[in-house]
């Protein structure tokens, strides 16, 4: 049952082959069995899940169910959930119970989705390996000595190990796509503003976007269409109508042109990964896509631009964590405000978060603002313009999601730059606010790798459809790690 996709489970529920309660129990059992090893969850909400499943069963019985009613999923612990601990994997919020639901949590709940729990992640989504979590690293289900990627590592591991059929995630620089690639699942980051950020704890507000991690593109379409859409509580939410993704993915294939930046195949990409990617591109060609070499002349500047913009915004976004209204407060008694703030924040945040805050404070500080922050914004424009230019000629930009398959736990924690370079292919879409998806496209050294497709703004339907067609002719997305089959 656990290897079935959301779409299949939706059909099963409707045909009464399984009840929401049975389904929920099944996944709660799997979590209980496997999560001590994986550490994919920070909080498992068994009681609420069973109550929600019972309600979903009633709804299915009454006949007023949506296609999502009764489907269990997991939420990344960055989304606020009313009455449930919302930690952002930080000691700072270890005691934090959100008094409200994030918009996407609310929307999925209204559709009848059952929340299994809150997944582990990098602290405040800052990381590419899930090793910065206050709750310890998540293990890659393909090899427990490896990282699952990050920051949505718990969501990725949970879906890859089939202890949850799908999960939500957030992507600021690749945090959905990179772990999806490293765990062999599908992950999509929609256009900036397509999904409300309300209730999603901010990392870098101009880059953050919520999305999903699923087994298939078809499942992603199903979830995304319930999550996306205008939200008056988010000033940066787009009011464009949400297409019926799950219907559109099954419409007839149209000829597309896929741009392939040759610079993506340089020395930075592991050879076997490049080989797998070439094979995947051939599959797309066989489906009728035209491949076209293109150039993104400034894409190599994405990483440095990102590591100015993201920390700058983060340093400000994280100032609200001061131990006054919520969050960690040091046990040591502070006599003055300065030491009060410094202790609460110094003890509440982990080292990577502190580094980003300090980097952000530095690039925004007097005398450095123009050289760093403003210059990074200009480079961001150049990177964005590269995509705009490319999309005059092609429908998608294709490339690798990551430079290599999953790396070892602890392998890169000592060197932030090595860690940051993991996101070299994914960051461009965040800087430009574009929708992007990672699809499992091969195996390197027994480990999954991903194909990334980036599309013009609001072209999620086309992206998902291409993914769906690709997954009709490939089976990489059906592979399950041996221990979890």
């Amino acid at each position, binding site marked *: 049952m656990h290897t079935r996709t959301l779409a299949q489970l939706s059909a099963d529920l409707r045909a009464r082959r399984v009840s929401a309660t049975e389904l929920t129990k099944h996944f709660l059992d799997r979590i209980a069995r496997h999560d001590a090893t994986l550490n994919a969850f920070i909080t498992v909400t068994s009681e609420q899940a069973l109550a929600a499943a019972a309600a979903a069963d009633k709804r299915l019985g009454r006949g007023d169910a949506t296609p999502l009613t009764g489907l269990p999923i997991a939420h990344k612990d960055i989304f606020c959930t009313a009455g449930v601990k919302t930690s952002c994997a930080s000691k700072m919020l270890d005691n934090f119970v959100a008094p409200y639901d994030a918009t996407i949590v609310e929307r999925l709940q209204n559709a009848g989705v059952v929340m299994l729990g809150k997944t582990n992640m990098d602290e405040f989504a800052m990381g590419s390996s899930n090793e910065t979590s206050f709750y310890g690293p998540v293990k890659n289900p393909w090899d427990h000595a490896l990282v699952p990627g990050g920051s949505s590592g718990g969501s990725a591991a949970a879906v890859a190990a089939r202890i949850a059929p799908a999960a939500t995630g957030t992507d600021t620089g690749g945090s959905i796509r990179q772990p999806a690639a490293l765990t062999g699942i599908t992950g999509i980051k929609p256009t900036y503003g397509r999904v409300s950020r*309300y209730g999603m704890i901010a990392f870098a507000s101009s880059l953050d976007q919520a999305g999903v991690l699923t087994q298939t593109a078809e499942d992603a379409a199903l979830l995304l269409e319930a999550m996306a859409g205008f939200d008056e*509580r988010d*000033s940066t939410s787009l009011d464009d109508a949400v297409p019926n993704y799950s219907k559109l993915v099954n419409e007839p294939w149209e000829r597309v042109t896929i741009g392939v930046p040759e610079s993506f195949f340089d020395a930075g990409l592991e050879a076997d990964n490049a080989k797998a990617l070439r094979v995947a591109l051939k599959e797309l060609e066989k489906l009728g896509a035209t491949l076209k070499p293109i150039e993104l002349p400034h894409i190599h500047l994405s990483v440095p631009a990102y590591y100015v913009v993201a920390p700058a915004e983060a340093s400000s976004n*994280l100032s*609200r*964590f001061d131990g006054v209204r919520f969050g960690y407060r040091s046990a040591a008694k502070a006599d003055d405000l300065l030491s009060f*703030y410094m202790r609460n924040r110094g003890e509440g945040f982990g080292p990577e978060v502190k580094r980003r805050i300090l980097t952000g404070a530095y690039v*925004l*500080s*007097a005398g450095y603002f123009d050289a760093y922050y403003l210059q990074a914004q200009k480079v961001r424009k150049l990177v964005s313009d590269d995509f705009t230019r490319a999309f005059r000629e092609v429908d998608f930009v294709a490339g690798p999601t990551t430079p290599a398959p999953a790396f070892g736990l602890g392998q890169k924690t000592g060197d932030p730059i090595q860690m940051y370079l993991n996101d070299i292919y994914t960051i461009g879409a965040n800087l430009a606010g574009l929708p992007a998806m990672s699809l499992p496209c091969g195996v390197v050294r027994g480990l999954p790798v991903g194909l990334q497709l980036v599309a013009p703004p609001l072209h999620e339907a086309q992206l998902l459809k291409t993914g769906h067609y690709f997954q009709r002719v490939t089976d990489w997305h059906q592979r399950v790690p041996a221990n979890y089959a």
Partner: protein
Amino acid sequence: MTWETVIGLEIHAQLATASKIFSGASTKYGAAPNTQASLVDLGYPGVLPVLNGDAVRMAVKFGLATHCKIAQRSIFARKNYFYPDLPKGYQISQYELPIVHGGHVDVQLPDGSTRHVNIVRAHLEEDAGKSLHEDFAGMSGIDLNRAGTGLLEIVSAPDMRSAQEAGAYMRKIHALVRYLEICDGNLQEGSFRCDANVSVRRVGDTKLGTRTELKNLNSFRFVEKAIEIERDRQIELIEGGGKVTQETRLFDPDREETRPMRSKEEANDYRYFPDPDLLPIAVDDALIERVRATLPELPDAKRERFTNAYSLSAYDADVLTVDKRLADYFEAVVKATKAAPKIAANWVMGELTGALNRTNVDIDASRVSAATLAALLDKIEAGTISGKIAKEVFEAVWNGEGSVDAVIEKRGLVQISDTGAIDKLVAEVIAANAAQVEQFRAGKQQVLGFLVGQVMKMSKGKANPQQVNEALRKQLGA
């Protein structure tokens, strides 16, 4: 050595919106602590600001009234600093591109001259909460009800040269924001606050001296007092061979001194950058025209019209137009009465304002309506009562003794205009004041006034003074 004081003001006007600038919480003053602090105002994780459209329209309104340029595109920026009354650790403000900039106001000074004060900019931002210091075992309590209330920060150029000019400018802006109905102007409640940048230089110098920023100037009087004290401090310092330090100083009205603020000791590095949670504010011509259509007649225009249409002195027109509601009251009286506008002006500025102040009653709640005052003035005009008696009637009406007619009737205050009765009173006075009559006949004209007074006294003020005068002259054969 003569010194010149150079002053610029930063005025914070709380916008008169029902809800906060970025949240749906109420802005009502005086609520129980933290009952009007929403998740957005508290800076809760995950929540986002959404801009109140009326705040934008109010800023545009102010810009139009002060000849400012309205930016088609303006940007919210984050001003980053840590303080307990600032929940997010940053204030959403405007930095490089404010919504309004480059205007001016002309300020009338007591000596009749005018000071042209440039307005550098006016920008939208959010207010902070409040720290309460008393009685928490050495700790401070934070109330965030005020956090997130919309503010318009109005920054003047350093164009003022005395504490009086600064006070006059502040009053001018105060009157203006109330006319525009964009701020209730309540200084006690902190709806209208002011910081002053003060420096001194030797007369003739073109370079500005080092300035200090004065805080906590929450009344017109404090602004003037604080500036004078700070000016004296700076002059004394320089003349004693010292140097002014650029710093923020707190005005202490009890000790009549300014002193450096400890919380501002550290040089600030606010790390401003565009707020990524908010997009640029777009103001197009259509919006500007819609706002322009809502502009009331402004104080300057009204004052001009009052001097011309009602032949009032500049001073009278100024006093009457400071508060739009006072001006409206005055005009309602003028419209309804046969008395001259100058008479109406005297009564509004005198009896009415006096009674309002004495009883601490707002003009909207005046116990003597414009129609009532007009009726009262008509009684004087018709000779039914004297001006002096009218004051008594006003007082009685104010105290709730009934209508003008009822009070006159009940108290028997109708003026004595009967010639026979007046002649009789005059004859009695002449008989009783032989010595004064003698002096008058000897050519001492002033004595007539005394005799008139005696007649008025005998009539308990009710005799028509004009007729008394005539009757006296007649009987004395003058």
